[in-house]
């Protein structure tokens, strides 16, 4: 039984990256930042939700290379991030959830103290082999209400994209137009008395411009959407590689809301609208700044 498992092979591949000189620096930097995490790990290196420090170190290394060299992410006002529990609300776009990965990497590499961003996974994700393990080891959990409340009460940073799939798979013509927001995040924030940090991500919405969404194919393949982009699916797997757009991530002032979390949808909806307007105006400001750098090339620099 000397055959290494798939997990071991992946881990070895990631570790071999460290031997590249400039990558080694990044790896060391990540180790330093992970040492300063406010998370408690048990004697085997796992936190109560299954987060593993070594897996985070490896995945963050790969993400950090994309972060630094492909998307050249620039964060603005990340020092606004409060300590303790926080709910990060951002716009969602780009066909695959790279914006979530970049935001998580930013929080680990640039926030003080470094934070692990906790994602709320879709209900079907735990049934997908390997994906479910990676998801949990990186600190995400199934997006049940109980999990979210527990994480916030343990003073973790939870990320939510209230647009959900509606936002991620929007067409190029709808870029930077926020889709309908779900209300759940506001109820959770009210219940756990958590500040909301609005985040506007500029750049992600051009990384994979979708020209159509084939609903019938999506239903057939049981996927939430089947986007057709400039490169996907006709270029195959290569077509999934996003354009090297430049990411700007704007962090807003923390917002605190008061009220009863079981209020009717109209009352909650008003509060959600405030957050949505804030993100929309932050997006507008970010786009304006980008316009000044050049109408087309500004997207890339």
């Amino acid at each position, binding site marked *: 039984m000397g055959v290494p498992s*798939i997990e071991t092979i992946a881990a070895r591949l990631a570790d071999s990256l460290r031997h590249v000189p400039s990558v080694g620096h990044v790896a060391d930097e990540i180790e330093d930042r992970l040492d300063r995490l406010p998370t408690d790990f*048990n004697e085997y290196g796992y936190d109560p939700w299954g987060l*593993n420090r070594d897996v985070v170190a490896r995945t963050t290394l790969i993400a950090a290379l994309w972060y630094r060299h492909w998307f050249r992410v620039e964060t603005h006002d990340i020092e606004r991030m409060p300590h303790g529990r926080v709910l990060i609300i951002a716009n969602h776009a780009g066909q695959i959830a790279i914006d979530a990965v970049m935001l998580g990497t930013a929080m680990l590499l640039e926030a003080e103290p470094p934070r692990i961003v906790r994602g709320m996974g879709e*209900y079907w994700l735990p049934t997908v*082999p390997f994906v*479910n393990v990676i998801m949990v080891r990186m600190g995400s959990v199934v997006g049940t*209400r109980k*999990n979210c409340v527990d994480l916030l009460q343990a003073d973790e940073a939870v990320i939510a994209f209230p647009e959900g799939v509606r936002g991620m798979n929007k067409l190029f013509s709808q870029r930077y137009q926020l889709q309908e927001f779900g209300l759940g995040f506001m109820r959770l924030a009210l219940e756990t008395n958590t500040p909301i940090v609005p985040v506007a991500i500029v750049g992600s919405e051009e990384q994979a411009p979708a020209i159509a969404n084939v609903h019938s194919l999506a239903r057939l393949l049981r996927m939430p959407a089947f986007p057709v982009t400039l490169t996907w699916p006709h270029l195959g797997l290569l077509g999934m590689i996003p354009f090297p757009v430049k990411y700007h991530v704007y962090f807003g002032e923390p917002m605190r809301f008061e009220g009863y979390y079981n209020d009717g949808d109209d009352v909650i909806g008003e509060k959600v609208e405030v957050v949505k307007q804030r993100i929309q105006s932050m997006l507008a400001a970010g786009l304006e700044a980008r316009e000044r750098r050049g109408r087309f090339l500004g997207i890339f620099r």
Partner: protein
Amino acid sequence: MASKPFVSGADSLFHFWPLPRPDDVLPPRGNDGNGAWTTPASDTTQVSLPSGNPPAPEQVAHPDTPDGTGSGSVSAAAAVGDVRGAELGPDDGDAHTETRGEGDIETRGGEDTADVAAEIAPAPRRPVAVVSSRERLLITGIAGGQGQLLARSVRDRFEIIGVDRERWDNHPRYVRMHVLDLRRRKLEDLFRTERPTAVVHLAFVRHFEANPRLRHEVNVAGTRQLLDYCASYGVRRLVVLSSSYVYGALPDNPCYMTEDAPLNVSRTYPEVRDLAEVDALCGAFLWRYPHIKTSILRPVNTLGNTVHSAVSRYLKLAYVPTILGFDPMLQFIHEEDLAEAVAVSLEKGIHGFFNVTGPGAVPLKVAIRESGGRPVGIPESVARVVIGNLFRLGLFPFPPGAIDFVKYPCTVEGSRFRAATGFSPVFTLSDIFKTARR
């Protein structure tokens, strides 16, 4: 017959309260309330104790009683009694001697000398009953690993009556052992004669070697029978050892399920639905008899040297089959911590459902490696077929329904129990895995 059935038809369903409380029908007992040890109410010659957990008065009276082989204890043995004699005794249950002939005593080394002094009282030669100052505790399934541990950890605080289908060879002297099946009428005789006021129910068939019908009958009918007797014979505290498996392992389980989570296990693992039924049965009992302090404990995976749990069998396989691409978090507790948790539940007289958790959770594969095994990932489609067939042939100890427990998490939140009892586990995760090594 004083037996009042547990559920006696529609009428009693709507009469929640008017059942006679033991306080109304039995003479007042010594010390009660505020969680202190109470003395059994059945005996008019009871000695009441101050609160707390004091030493037995016999021990105080004779602090210099030498050891078990001393002449004092031999003369005490004159009072009578075979272990089995007590069970068959024709007496009406209020005069019991707990001392035994020297011939019955199996010496098991020096560890018991301390309680021999406490157990074997200087026998009064009068025809008066030997007064036991301690509450009587009936433990079902006492011969199992968990039962033995529990008996040992509560021996100073209770007079222990043990029941099991299996013999417990060389059982310690502080246990009055009765070999009988829970489904037998003889169990009722035992309640009548021994008059236990506390019951711990551990007698469940949790393996799959037995006929499934027998398993269901022992677990469900046996529990039902026991609950009836508890209600009829003045039992004041009851602890049932259920399991956290009753919640089931499902993909959308939250990481930390509270006691309010639904009991979903039969959805994917029908072979153990009797455990969920038992849990529900005890839950109904808990609501119906609020004066009986009933706690239903749902512990996580239990490991240790004496316990034969499903998970320890699994971890001790030569090559441990896992499902390729899945590695859920599992919680563990050491068997001795669990015995302590049961003892603490009795002591505090807590009432309700309680998840009992240990020091924490690790992924399945870490648990396998730490307990000395080798995980072998098998694609799920293959595993379902292979395990199903091997199980049918008796070559694999778990039915295919168990697969979900190595795919999805079934982890629970233990804060309610810790808040109610102040319990905290002593054994760390690495201690626990050491005991599971083959």
